[in-house]
């Protein structure tokens, strides 16, 4: 949960002030703990998806990376700004994941860090801007576009949905994002992969659920639950 309640939505004539949910270091820590727990629980599932069309390391790599991230984020001082905290996540991922998801998720959090900067809390708009900067970093790094059957197919609609619902507050926006990520993950299952290890399989990659889009969906679900829960 970000902090809801201190300033509930107040109608100001025709203007409304949206519920003042904010994303702060405590929310980021809840997100990391939730995502790390779920990656650990679903390690075998992610690896099984990856063994069908990749090199069978996605679950192992993500679990190793976020176990390391959890330790690093726990060590941060309580006064750490969001940019520094997100940079810690990104730097840890690029050094510990090992596979393609290391530089991809690492770039996502490094770009988030640059966007969040020295803020100690982000409102719905600032978080949306940061998420989009992360998406652009991932797209640039992986040179993937929609329908290449990658994590972009979950991440891009998630962030579009976030922006579409941001005026209803952060919790609503993150809920929309998580739903859109899951829809995107399922939408691409029939497709033939055009990027990554799965693309070497050509037609044989069709009708397999994409592991990267799956872990990205878990990430947005964890973000939603860290703010809303």
């Amino acid at each position, binding site marked *: 949960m970000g902090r809801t309640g201190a300033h509930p939505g107040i109608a100001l004539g025709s203007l409304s002030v949206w519920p003042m949910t904010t994303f702060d270091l405590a929310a980021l820590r809840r997100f990391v703990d939730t995502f790390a727990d779920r990656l650990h629980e679903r390690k075998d599932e992610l690896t099984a998806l990856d063994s069908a069309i990749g090199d069978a390391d996605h679950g192992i790599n993500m679990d190793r990376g976020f176990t390391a991230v959890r330790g690093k984020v726990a060590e941060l001082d309580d006064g750490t700004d969001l940019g520094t905290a997100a940079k810690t996540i990104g730097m840890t991922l*690029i*050094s510990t*994941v*090992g596979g393609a*998801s*290391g*530089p991809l998720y690492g*770039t996502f959090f*490094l770009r988030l860090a640059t966007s969040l900067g020295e803020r100690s809390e982000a409102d719905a708009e600032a978080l949306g801007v940061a998420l989009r900067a992360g998406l652009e970093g991932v797209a*640039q790094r992986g040179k993937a576009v929609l329908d290449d059957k990658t994590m972009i197919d979950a991440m891009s609609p998630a962030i579009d949905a976030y922006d579409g619902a941001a005026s209803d507050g952060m919790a609503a926006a993150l809920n929309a994002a998580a739903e859109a990520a899951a829809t995107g993950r399922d939408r691409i299952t029939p497709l033939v992969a055009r990027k990554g290890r799965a693309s070497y399989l050509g037609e044989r990659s069709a009708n397999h659920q994409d592991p990267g889009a799956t872990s990205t969906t878990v990430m947005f679900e964890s973000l939603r639950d860290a703010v809303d829960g």
Partner: protein
Amino acid sequence: MTQDSTAAVGIVVVSHSAEVADATVRLVAQLANLPEDGPRLVAAGGLADGSVGTDAVRIADAVRRADAGAGVVILADLGSAVLSAGTAIDDLLEPDVAERTVISRGPLVEGTFVAAVQASASDGLDGVRAAADEAADMDKLGDRA
């Protein structure tokens, strides 16, 4: 670009395996008969804990060590090696070093060998990269018309 034309272009070898990266550097240094003051070849393989994988932080450190001012060509094996090298350039390296660092599309061993020969012949960054890029096409069997 900020490049020192008197220095040799450096070469970084990125592999998922530390052993493959280290051995490629040793092999090429010997095959290319590199002089002591020749191009710097630096390996960046595996993860710090010894696992198979690539680490953008290790790659960035290797680029800094390989850079003598004339730029650096990175040879990478597959997949995340290329992504991690790109992360090192775009997100980790200092801007002046990043702008004279490039990733070659050439194959790891052949590309590193050709790049090292070109770099020791005092070719510049563009020439070394072009030679490494074309290494996939080298007439290895010597039977082309």
